[in-house]
């Protein structure tokens, strides 16, 4: 069975996820309501321009929305006893999880368009559109892969447990990624910590696409995002393969 057929079946899995999981309570709470209030808290009362707000707003929007669906899928499938049905079907484990990543990716991309359109409507100009679009797609895929990785352990069938544990990773990442302060204004230890977060590189790209200024070089930002995306995807597939029997038992 060719990889093309398997990619096709990944899209079927993604379609199933769209039908079933986009409107689940935890996804709405963690993917829409929560980031909305966080964005409101981030923007209101701060005496800075929309141009300065843009990287942080887009970074948070993409990060929270693209990591909202992934952690919910697997525990939900295990709980509703549909996971074994999927595992029995002629779909490779990698194709199965790629499908879940794609569902998270489309959710992140779709929802993040709303703040983007609002900011553009308010007069923010994106000067480096191609860089921003490529960065947005890469970052959304990277965070979607991260969201699948976050659902690996514990191999539970309680979605709320996975959602809460994933939040323990997601929130610190936002604080170390230059959302609230540009990377160049952080102390050296802060810059070192922020360099391990993929969100840092998207924020840097978003800032460059608006102001033409970036802390890292643009090829480096794109390469690191790509590297993180591939690493998250491969590691999550390997770990899911390992823990799948426990989840099914």
């Amino acid at each position, binding site marked *: 069975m060719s990889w093309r057929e398997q990619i096709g*079946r990944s899209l079927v899995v993604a379609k199933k996820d769209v039908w079933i999981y986009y409107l689940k309570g935890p996804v709405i709470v963690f993917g829409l309501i929560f980031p909305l209030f966080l964005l409101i808290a981030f923007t209101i009362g701060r005496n800075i321009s929309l141009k300065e707000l843009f990287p942080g707003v887009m970074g948070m929007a993409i990060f929270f929305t693209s990591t909202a669906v992934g952690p919910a899928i697997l525990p939900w499938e295990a709980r509703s006893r549909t996971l074994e049905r999927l595992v*029995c079907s*002629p779909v490779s484990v990698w194709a199965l999880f790629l499908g879940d990543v794609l569902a998270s990716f489309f959710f992140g991309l779709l929802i993040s368009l709303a703040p983007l359109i609002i900011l553009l409507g308010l007069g923010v100009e994106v000067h480096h559109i191609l860089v921003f679009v490529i960065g947005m797609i890469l970052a959304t895929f990277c965070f979607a892969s991260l969201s699948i990785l976050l659902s690996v352990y514990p191999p539970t069938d309680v979605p709320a447990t996975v959602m809460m544990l994933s939040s323990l990773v997601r929130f610190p990442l936002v604080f170390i990624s230059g959302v609230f302060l540009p990377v160049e204004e952080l102390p050296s230890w802060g810059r070192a910590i922020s360099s391990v977060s993929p969100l840092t590189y998207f924020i840097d790209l978003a800032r460059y696409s608006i102001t033409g200024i970036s802390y890292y070089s643009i090829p480096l930002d794109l390469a690191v995002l790509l590297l993180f995306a591939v690493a998250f995807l491969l590691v999550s597939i390997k770990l899911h393969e390992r823990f799948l029997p426990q989840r*099914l038992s």
Partner: protein
Amino acid sequence: MNAIEVQALTKRFGGFRAVDHISFGVEEGEVFGFLGPNGSGKSTTIRMLTGVIRPDQGKAIIMGHDVHKEPLKAKQVMGIVPETSNAYIELSAWNNLMLMGELYGVPKKEREERAYMLLKQFGLHERRDSPARGFSKGMKQRLILCMALINEPSVLFLDEPTSGLDVESTRLINDVIRDLNRTGTTVFLTTHDMVEANQLCERIAIINRGAIVAIDRPEILKQMASGLESVEVSFERTVEADALSAFVHVRRVEKRGDKFRLYAEDVNGTIDSITDFAKMQGLKIVSLNTLAPSLEDIFVKLTQKERPEAGRVLA
């Protein structure tokens, strides 16, 4: 070629051997029953055969494809109703079937035609657009069977397909199994229902504590039941079971409602003892039947850890 070939299949969980070097073959077009008490290794075996878990040793070959070397090719020819499976309750019956058809790569026109036929056959066509959430247990199980058949599998695995279902759904599913068998589909069935196994299966394997203890045609298995012939008697009023267990030829007495089942080495001698006993006690016999050993008797004989002593009364 066997549709299913199992060679020395073994699975351990920690130090516990759930399945221990089992080997058997299932011919193409055969309905094969796989029976065993809870925890005997039935579901672990079926999960290894369907590629859900990897065996520690041995191999399973489905229609010529090694399940663990060529899992996708093997899974492509299987239809599966897992014991712990469910349909997507958020989706309609129709969309559940479309989803499964797409996962098995069935072309759109074919999967729509098959889905229509299956929903008709299983009495779900009227509810095809309703979310499965509102379906009864029997309807859900019928839908799961439809999902397992959407790819027209060569080998169908059914893990307790009628467990806890109403009579109508059970009968429908059993009829479909017979129809599938007539069209050449190989069926691998696990069940707790001995009557169902007896009526559906051409051969039966009995697994106990991870090992296969018997494998043969149901009627041949029943011949293994020397000493399991029994006499069932009901008196007009209650009598002490101990009095019956004292009969010369009786090995064991079981009280079943208002009846006693007497397992005996000599059925005729036991009938004589019963009639003599009734005369002496001034009892009227309400019913008296001789019973051939059932598959259940064989199952109990082969799987019971310790058989009751001769003459022991089981209330």
